[in-house]
């Protein structure tokens, strides 16, 4: 097990190196000059002299390879440079905005699990009856609706029409309700449907039939013999949902004025703020990879067959 984890961890630096190269190249291959954006933000007329000066100021006048290597050298030492737009260290800003994003994503994950599991069980216990159809309806809407559109609809109903919830900003629970719902509805829908399917599958297996024959209560059978076995796919799906939720958070933050990484990154895209985008992609990759690793470990821990297989390979 430890070897498995160590092996996976060892791959991460290589992966980050690859990602950094690709991102660096992609940003620079696009037509466009951050110096012009810098001048636009500064409201300085873009004369040739002004552009040359801005390029020198931003370090864009050096050869590409040199730019990449010096960036890489600094990045290894956790110095991701200075934002073109705000002139502040990128890592400081990233770490400043990260907690707000993680907070939103974590609450969304909790809500996803807390709502989808009961819904899935409820649907599985009444297949093709009204409860199942209700859950199917919710899932249908949830999966089809883009999160930013849902966000705007929520704002229109709860902030503009009813005046119940604040439309933007960070503060108490009332500020979180709408963004969390907008972010989590899709994952929640997928999860509920998936749990229903896998529970019905597990419910048809022989050990469940045997348990029922033994005279165990319905509740006991559902809990210990069906749900336990049906949960494994959910764990895998949750790993993917973490990515989905963080991704969704990035989009939704812009709508709800949530001071997190998403808004920071979107502004950086508009301003062609290369240092910010490079750091952003790299660190988000790291977060995803680590989350997936944790899920894999969890998976192995939950399912003895996988654990045995991994250990048997030694």
């Amino acid at each position, binding site marked *: 097990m430890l070897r498995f984890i160590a092996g996976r961890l060892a791959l991460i630096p290589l992966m980050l190196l690859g990602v950094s190269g690709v991102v660096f190249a992609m940003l620079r291959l696009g037509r466009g000059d951050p110096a*012009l954006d810098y001048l636009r933000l*500064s409201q300085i007329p873009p*004369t040739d002299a002004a552009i040359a000066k801005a390029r020198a100021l931003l370090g864009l006048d050096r050869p590409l390879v040199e730019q990449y290597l010096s960036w890489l050298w600094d990045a290894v030492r956790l110095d991701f440079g200075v934002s073109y737009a*705000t002139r502040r260290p990128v890592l400081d*800003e990233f770490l400043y905005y990260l907690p*707000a994003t993680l907070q939103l994503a974590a609450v969304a994950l909790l809500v996803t699990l807390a709502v989808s599991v009961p819904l899935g069980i409820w649907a599985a216990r009444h297949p093709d009856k009204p409860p199942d159809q209700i859950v199917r309806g919710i899932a249908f809407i949830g999966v089809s609706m883009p999160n930013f559109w849902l966000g705007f609809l929520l704002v229109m109903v709860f902030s*503009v029409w009813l005046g119940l919830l604040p*439309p933007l900003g960070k503060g108490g629970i009332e500020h979180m309700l709408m963004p969390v719902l907008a972010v989590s509805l899709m994952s929640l829908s997928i999860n509920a449907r998936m749990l229903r399917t896998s529970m019905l599958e597990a419910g048809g297996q022989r050990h469940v039939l045997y348990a029922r024959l033994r005279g165990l209560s319905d509740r006991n059978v559902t809990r210990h013999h069906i749900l336990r076995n049906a949960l494994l796919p959910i764990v895998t799906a949750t790993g993917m949902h973490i990515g989905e939720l963080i991704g969704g958070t990035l989009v939704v933050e812009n*709508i709800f004025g949530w001071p997190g990484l998403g808004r920071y990154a979107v*502004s950086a895209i508009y301003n062609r703020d290369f240092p910010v985008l490079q750091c952003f992609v790299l660190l988000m990759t790291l977060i995803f990879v680590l989350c997936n690793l944790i899920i894999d470990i969890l998976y192995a821990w939950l399912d003895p067959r996988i654990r045995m297989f991994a250990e048997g390979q030694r």
Partner: protein
Amino acid sequence: MRIARILAGLAILALLVSGPARAETTLTYSWTANVGPLNPHAYAPNEMFGQAMVYEPLVKYHADGTVAPWLATGWTVSGDGHVYTFTLRRDVKFSDGTVFDAAAVKANFDTVLASRERHNWLELANQIRRTEALDASTFRLTLKEAYYPVLRELALIRPFRFISPPAIPAEGTADKIIAPIGTGPWKLAETRLGEYDLFVRNETYWGPKPVFDQILVKVIPDPNSRAVAFETGDIDLIYGAGQISPDVFARFQAMYPNKTAVSQPLTTEMVALNTNRAPTNDLFVRKAINHAVDKDGIVDSVLYGTQKRAAALFAPNFPYADVGLHPYIYDPAKAEALLDEAGWRRIDGEAIRAKEGVKLRIELCYVGNNAQQKAIAEVIQANLRKIGIDVMLVGEESNAFETRQREGEFGMIFGETWGAPYDPHSFISSMRVPSHADYQAQLGLPLKGELDAKIGEVLVTVDETKRRRLYRDILTALHEEAVYLPLTYSTAPLVAGPKLGAVGFGPSVSEIPFETYPPAN
């Protein structure tokens, strides 16, 4: 009525005197980003409206284009226009208690000029030869040439405004400041990244004190979110170009008829016609284009009536710009006649005209993700097609677009003037610079050399009559040569929430006169 007003005034006074019993009054505004460290001598990420709240100039630019005393009570100019001597106000202190005097002024000028190359986009930065503090309240500026727009450039929000000398680091203000301490009506009290900036009233301000206690500026990058925040009362004010989309503004105008306003023309949105390229090198074609585009149609259909139709390159409210030009009126028949006269004819009933086997086809370049420009481009395309000109729309990413502007790679290209207080002198000055669309567009004019010489002259002449005549010549020539297709005079929207009383516009795009805004009764 008057008695009621006096009573109201006394009531307010009583409230003010009663002090602590009064609740803090806060005006909430929003901006796309935090205001930054508010270094008065630096550019991005310092937001200009924030710099204008904290720092003040020697002289103030007014909406009518004149310049009036501000931190300087007066000035004299030497006969040759090289030496400006300013008398400073004696009752001004920075918000940290430091006295504002000639030494402070000189310290600020010197730290700005220490990194002169950062500011040399502004001609004044190149023109200053010497700065002197003659005594506590007399400051002298010596120039290399008789550059006439000195006062207007001193009125700009940056870089020639004043920070308290103790807040200037030993190495100068080029990279950072110690604290944002100015003489203005507001002080920056708190910044929370990504959330808000809080300004509080400067209690030691020398001028009329602001009525609101605080200005809270929330960070809202998205125009739709801003509109929602206004409707729910989370912000009290929408002010400035680009804060909300024209359709939302039109809706607010209908919803709150007494709470919206449109500013004076700020800039001119226009299309530059390339005189150095066929077929726009033909004056008849350029004139025909000017007669064929239905600007009122554009204003009504694309801009929801929120902007004004433009008649010339500069709106007549700009200095020296009211020179009595005759606008090209919308008259497709006249446009067709002009094209016929120039030999561009429809052969065998074809929709597109041609001359000597060459079709009358022009590229119109716009910024691809600018929905408004695209919509306007489509109207122009339809209008010109009616008179037999085939317009090819080229929508590109903004950087590629700017490269075309600089290199003259266009038949027609969108552009805009720079607004007060840069118009007309800075804008005209840039027409001599090859990396500008205007230079490229004018390159085909036989009188381009003469035009550039006149522009050079108008900036340094000390003779007011001569300056007027030169401006008249330049603007008339550009108009008669139809180098531009002026579309609209862009204006900024203002929507005030129920917490605000009567509010108005500042003299330039980025100056929001918060200090004059009263709360609603």
